[in-house]
């Protein structure tokens, strides 16, 4: 199932640049006043939630244009429930990201985007590790450590596409390279998974969102 989904996403991604570059005929006059707000929902997280019962989450995204610069923000929530050999790990939390994307398709009349940008991400979450251990001296016992007030932040370099599909409907994807994770927690248990970022056992990680968006015009563009 996951392989089929990946294959579909791959094909859509590979076809999108062709659509985008085919539309670079006309020009857009520079103007730094916003022309519209795009709001959308990520379809990867809900699909992941359906196909993998260890994960649950959703994410919304929005951006507003200032000529070729887009102020963008994402908010989301995720939970993980993992079972180890002698333990169970759970986390739950909310996160947001904010940053700027730069559109490199300056002359596209539909404002389709091939963009690169950056984000700062911030997450507030809880974690718990529960373990049942057989110790040769102290016997079998269960032990729980949790922390409900964890905070973490990170940086992202982003790239992707936004394509106008039909009237107000847009689709696109964002590839994220996440790094510089920092956390406020020195307590136990060790931070394992940060909502919005992912596993902490590597100093950098990747993320991917596929978005379905609606663009709400806020002023009429000059012809």
């Amino acid at each position: 199932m996951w392989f089929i989904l990946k294959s579909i996403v791959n094909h859509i991604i590979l076809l999108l640049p062709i659509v985008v570059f085919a539309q670079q005929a006309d020009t857009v006059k520079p103007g730094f006043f916003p022309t519209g707000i795009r709001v959308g929902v990520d379809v990867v997280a809900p699909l992941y939630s359906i196909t993998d019962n260890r994960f649950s989450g959703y994410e919304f995204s929005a951006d507003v244009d200032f000529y070729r610069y887009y102020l963008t923000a994402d908010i989301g929530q995720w939970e993980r429930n993992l079972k180890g050999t002698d333990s169970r790990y759970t986390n739950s939390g909310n996160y947001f990201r904010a940053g700027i994307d730069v559109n490199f398709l300056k002359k596209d009349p539909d404002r389709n985007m091939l963009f690169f940008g950056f984000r700062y991400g911030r997450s507030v979450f809880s974690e718990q590790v529960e373990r049942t251990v057989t110790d040769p001296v102290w016997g079998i016992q269960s032990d729980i450590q949790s922390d409900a007030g964890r905070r973490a932040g990170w940086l992202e370099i982003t790239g992707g596409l936004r394509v106008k599909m039909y009237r107000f409907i847009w689709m696109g994807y964002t590839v994220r390279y996440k790094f510089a994770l920092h956390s406020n927690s020195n307590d136990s248990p060790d931070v394992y998974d940060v909502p919005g970022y992912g596993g902490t056992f590597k100093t950098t990680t990747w993320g991917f969102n596929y978005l379905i968006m609606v663009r709400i015009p806020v002023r009429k563009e000059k012809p």
Partner: protein
Amino acid sequence: MRWIFAAALLLPACLDKPDCISQADNTLRIAFKKAGSGAADTVVIYHIEAIGADSVFYKQVPVDRPDTLRGTPAVVAVNPFADTTDFVFRFPTENKVLKVRYQRSMRFINENCFSELRISNLQVRFTDFDSVRVVESSLTQSNVVHIEIYR
């Protein structure tokens, strides 16, 4: 460009999970030293009790007779389910108490591994030995001595 994006998609699949290797341990090694010279001391001991545990360290069965530690450290285990452990040392002529405290940090390694409990910041919270020193405050699977007792 399409290959860059395709590669970016495939990269997350290459992210490996952390290894199941753990050096964490709850074994506490206690060395006995001569107060004047600091040389390894030979200790005659009946046994060491950890309060709350069913097991008794160095107890001879079926008859509880003294054991001799000829310069080797006593190896006991702290309670991995509590932040403190109290030990009672039964010597032929007297009993001595050593109470320790420590920090416990759980780590979920991954779904295919046993979890890890690291014990660190070892401290002596009470003892009636004359002189006790913590020389290594983290408990690991290496054979280092954690506490030295001078007699």
